[in-house]
């Protein structure tokens, strides 16, 4: 249904329920929907399963959500970073569950959820500990692992610009997981730096068509330090 434009980030995240699975865009800090995460912290939903590439940097974004004690489980490819100390401490204290998924498999499992694919066979991870307990099948002489979709109740993503139809374009490698997460959740909430009238984005250059976007909210671009980006 039609994309709605929220006046504030608080309005944008209204109604997210305890126990939700939340897909959170970004690769490190690039494409991370900071303002939506801050609003989610204020909104108060807890017992969340977070699906994201990383498990937070420094004290901002996902790290702040983790620190606030709202996260039951993290599904990601790469939790361990130089500044992932919030996650690291919670994990070592047994206060957060972790499911590690190869990065491309994580993306593809979300794509499957968005694309109505019931399951798929991937060669990635076959013969490694991350495939333990998973079904396998040999196809063309190569062992493949059966992978199932990862679907979100909610996706929080950050894009560059939207039009009023909800069409999105991104900026450089901040695109990363946004477009695939936008297809894979029941309610998709996007923060953007700019909302232009319908027709203001070249139809040939739209990356995420508005059909995938439920709520839009404007948020100022942040100046992040280089240190913060590592």
């Amino acid at each position, binding site marked *: 249904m039609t994309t709605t434009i929220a006046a504030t980030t608080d309005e944008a995240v209204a109604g997210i329920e305890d126990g939700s699975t939340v897909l959170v865009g970004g690769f490190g800090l690039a494409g991370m929907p900071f303002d939506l995460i801050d609003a989610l912290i204020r909104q108060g939903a807890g017992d969340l399963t977070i699906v994201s590439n990383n498990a937070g940097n420094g004290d901002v974004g996902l790290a702040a959500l983790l620190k606030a004690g709202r996260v039951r489980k993290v599904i990601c490819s790469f939790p361990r970073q130089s500044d992932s100390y919030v996650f690291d401490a919670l994990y070592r204290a047994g206060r957060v569950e972790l499911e590690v998924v190869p990065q491309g498999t994580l993306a593809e499992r979300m794509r499957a959820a968005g*694309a109505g*694919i019931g399951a798929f066979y991937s060669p990635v991870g076959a013969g490694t500990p991350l495939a333990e307990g998973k079904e396998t099948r040999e196809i063309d002489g190569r062992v493949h692992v059966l992978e199932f979709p990862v679907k979100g109740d909610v996706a929080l993503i950050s894009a560059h610009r939207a039009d009023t139809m909800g069409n999105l374009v991104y900026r450089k490698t901040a695109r990363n997981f946004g477009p695939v997460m936008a297809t894979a959740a029941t309610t998709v909430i996007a923060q953007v730096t700019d909302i232009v009238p319908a027709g203001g984005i070249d*139809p*040939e250059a739209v990356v995420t068509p508005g059909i995938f976007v439920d709520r839009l909210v404007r948020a100022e671009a942040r100046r992040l330090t280089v240190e913060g980006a590592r």
Partner: protein
Amino acid sequence: MTSPVLERADRAPLTTDELAARIARDIPAGSYVNLGIGQPTRIAEHLPPDAGVVLHTENGMLGMGPAATGDEIDLDLTNAGKVPVTELPGAAYFHHADSFAMMRGGHLDVCVLGAFQVSRHGDLANWHTGEPDAIPAVGGAMDLAVGARQVLVMMKLFTRDGAPKLVPACTYPLTGPRCVHRVYTDHGVFAVGPDGVRVLETYGISVAALRERLDVELTG
């Protein structure tokens, strides 16, 4: 609780345009909709411009406008029936794998398809007459049948020979099992599904007469 049947035996059956207008009324404002090749494309003419309905065409576009005429015609811009169409502000183009991912993934609110037969449980047959010498051609029919959240059928209720097309079980090869939610016909509107057929409206025929002519149990 079911709403009472709107029985209009006193008037003529719906014309194709009336039927298209009737279906258009049931399409919620702001929906993303795919209108199948043939008669369903005429529904677009009856959607109020301010309803904000966005049309999808499976050959890679959201925000499709009306058929192109004169200088508007651009053969790089057609609908799924390969008819030149136009682009509305806020349109988006994408490739075939993305377009069908969108459909199969359940992102369309409504699709409206023509049909040879629909069974009382919502099985759809609309791609093959089953004749042995027919060249089979499925196109996007099966993808559309499983894809949209609401699958509506637009068809005549009877063949030219008077045989019902709403049937106990399809005799033509299936497009998809149990995928149709509602059937809109010249003689009436029906909800179909696990509980069988419920009559919602009739046109030019009474419910009693429909019970005589259809081989399926009608509730409602």
